[in-house]
């Protein structure tokens, strides 16, 4: 049976078929749907973890105990989880261990374009690169086999186009893999320096054995075709090369790319002489091939920035382009993402804009507070950076009013340590926790503050106020994010406190409380003075057109934020009621 699946759905299916028992992740685009789909299989114990490092450590425990495990994260999540992952390369596994890094060339929804294939080399582990959903599914099972056979963690690396593209996948039944027996083995699992020194030479030996295996790995194969071009390629590059060149080229299609299948590559180059390397992203393969003393035509021709495409391959190798229409696309306004109509962050940012001099922001929907017209946010770096960034600002610019904004899920992910640091070092910073009770930007995943687990079943709910107090914060306010006066008063008091302070602005994400019926607002034309104050909160439901301000009654959720910024009482319930 074949089914049309995204790469992420296929990886989930692969985990199911390969007998995975435990799967963990923290949500992150483009990886999120892997765990969402794994959670559909009752045979797999799946969970959202508080962050990527924790997810890897939970999976490690399960792996040591004898189960096959899978962990999924976006590319920058691997940075967070790098500590346990690097050392796992020394320890090795009991049950098979595979971790997925979903990279984002082109930065569709990420802060950088890091090419995580380098991690495989750095961690001295195995790298698998699928080109479509069928391969993504198969590589989960094959990766777990390699993991167990060679006693190593395995990195399955996708990109946005692999994760979020659908193609047909053949399904197979689940293989029940018995638990490996657990035996206490301190030399293997307890990282005393003396133990690590014993294991260290074995890692080099393992890499040599894996390199030999890579030459025989069935996913590393020559696809015979025309003699016009000889192409080495992997991952999404394979699709674009094949789309552009079709049967005119002969391909060395690589799927297990670290350790490098040096024998296959050497034979291919010896046979064909002039060989092109179609590789998306950094010259990872190119550097390794050059290190073998071999030469290919790669980054001298193809860009290392952004995504590759069939159009680029066509242009660079064939010197042709598709015929196109010439449409006048001048002065086409962009359509950037915006905070949703009714988003509880909107009013909070409007108030923060009024009172703060410097705002350090964080990763999540509230990074959209930066967009015009709210324009709130001086910095945004990585998960949890807002609070320590703010402390740094406070040390250097003590006369400025400094506010850090962070969401509930990001606060639990890596904000708490920053808050303890802020209290411990007594920084004059006001932290605003935008508590919308969900992990929003990635598409609404549950988290420890939402009170539900990955299956939507009730789970213990962490108490943010108690955590904040336990970190040592004494100046603490909790406000309704829709109540601008209350929010503003709390912000003023917090900033005036002169020390570390926290304002928790609470209100569930508008997209998860759709069942709460609120009446849309309209504008009383006779009361509106066209001052446009309401437009400054940047609600997509309010528009100034043809000389009048208008509220879109379908989009409006009746949150009332615009009503509170109107000095003339011009907003009323649709139908004229007050």
């Amino acid at each position, binding site marked *: 049976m074949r089914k049309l699946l995204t790469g992420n759905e296929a990886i989930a299916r692969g985990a199911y078929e390969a007998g995975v028992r435990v799967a963990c992740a923290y949500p992150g685009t*483009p990886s999120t749907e892997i765990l969402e789909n794994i959670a559909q299989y009752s045979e797999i114990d799946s969970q959202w973890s508080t962050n990527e490092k924790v997810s890897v450590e939970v999976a490690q425990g399960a792996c040591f105990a004898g189960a096959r495990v899978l962990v999924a994260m976006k590319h920058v999540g691997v940075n967070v989880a790098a500590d346990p992952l690097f050392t796992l390369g020394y320890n090795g596994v009991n049950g098979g261990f595979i971790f997925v890094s979903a990279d984002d060339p082109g930065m569709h929804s990420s802060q950088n374009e890091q090419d995580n294939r380098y991690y495989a080399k750095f961690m001295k582990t195995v790298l698998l690169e699928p080109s479509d959903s069928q391969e993504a599914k198969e590589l989960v099972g094959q990766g777990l086999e390699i993991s167990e056979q060679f006693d190593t963690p395995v990195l399955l690396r996708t990109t946005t186009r692999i994760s979020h593209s659908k193609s047909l996948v053949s399904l197979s039944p689940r293989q029940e893999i018995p638990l490996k027996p657990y035996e206490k083995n301190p030399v293997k699992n307890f990282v005393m320096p003396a133990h690590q020194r014993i294991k260290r030479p074995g890692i080099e030996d393992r890499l040599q054995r894996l390199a030999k295996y890579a030459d025989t790995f069935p996913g590393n194969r020559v696809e015979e075709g025309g003699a016009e071009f000889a192409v080495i390629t992997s991952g999404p590059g394979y699709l674009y090369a094949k789309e552009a060149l079709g049967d005119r080229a002969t391909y060395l299609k690589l799927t297990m790319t670290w350790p490098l299948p040096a024998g296959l590559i050497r034979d291919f180059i010896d046979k064909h002489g002039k060989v092109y390397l179609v590789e998306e992203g950094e010259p990872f393969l190119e550097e390794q091939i050059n290190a073998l003393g071999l030469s290919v035509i790669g980054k001298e021709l193809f860009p290392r920035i952004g995504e590759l495409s069939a159009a680029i391959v066509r242009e660079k190798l064939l010197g042709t382009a598709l015929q196109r229409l010439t449409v006048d696309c001048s002065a086409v306004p962009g359509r950037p993402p915006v905070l949703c109509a009714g988003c509880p962050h909107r009013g909070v940012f409007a108030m923060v804009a009024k009172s703060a001099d410097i705002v350090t922001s964080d990763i999540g929907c509230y990074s959209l507070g930066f967009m015009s017209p709210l324009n709130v946010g001086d910095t945004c770096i990585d998960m949890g950076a807002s609070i320590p960034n703010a402390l740094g600002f406070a040390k250097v610019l003590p006369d400025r009013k400094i506010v850090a904004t962070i969401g509930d899920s990001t606060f639990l992910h890596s904000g708490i340590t920053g808050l303890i640091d802020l209290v411990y070092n007594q920084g004059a910073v006001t932290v605003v926790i935008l508590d919308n009770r969900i992990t929003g930007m990635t598409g609404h995943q549950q988290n420890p503050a939402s009170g539900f687990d990955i299956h939507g079943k009730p789970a213990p709910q962490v108490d943010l106020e108690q955590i904040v107090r336990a970190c040592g914060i004494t100046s603490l306010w909790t406000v309704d994010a829709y109540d601008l006066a209350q929010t503003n008063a709390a912000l003023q008091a917090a900033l005036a406190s002169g020390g570390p302070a926290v304002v928790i602005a609470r209100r569930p994400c508008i997209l998860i409380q759709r069942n709460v019926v609120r009446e849309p607002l309209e504008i009383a034309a006779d009361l509106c003075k066209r001052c446009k104050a309401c437009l400054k909160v940047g609600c997509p439901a309010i*528009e100034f057109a043809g000389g009048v301000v208008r509220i879109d009654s379908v989009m409006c959720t009746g949150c009332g934020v615009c009503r509170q910024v109107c000095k003339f009482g011009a907003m009323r319930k649709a139908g004229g009621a007050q």
Partner: protein
Amino acid sequence: MKQPINILIVGVGGQGTLFAGKVIGSVAERCGFDVKQSEVHGMAQRGGSVVTYVRFGNNVVSPLVEKGEADIIVAFEQLEALRWSEYLKPAGTIIVNELKISPMPVITGAAQYPDNIFARLEQAGVSTIRVNAGQLAADSGNPKALNIVLLGLLAKRLPVARELWDAAISEVGPAQSRAANLLAFDKGWTF
């Protein structure tokens, strides 16, 4: 089909473009075609410009449709029609819903919404089908089903029998909306 059929569905996050993509994928699968489909999630969905690429035929390699490669573009919104029009093949067709949704730069007054979108398409010689899908959806009794209406317009121009579309809509959509969705689809099909 030796050459795959390439389709772009473009619009504004939240307009139901993903559902339309799912139905096309399901139909192509029912026909026994190879099919690939691609879309970007995350940031783009918060009211941003969104695109779904769908390709089907005997053999499909890349999941992406390149500029100059689309046989048909279905635009759920006028400005998005203009933005993505260069993806069309010179002989391709664009189906444009007359709806205008102002992006934030227009709302804040930083930019103007172009008022001559259909004229620009005409000037470039683009084969354009103009439709008020919201009105047709309302006529069908389901004002929210403009995505299904537009799907009907697209379906009529693809080499796939009507029954397969009806079956796919019934399967992909929720059971309780089946009858309403089929009525909306018919409005597009018979437009």
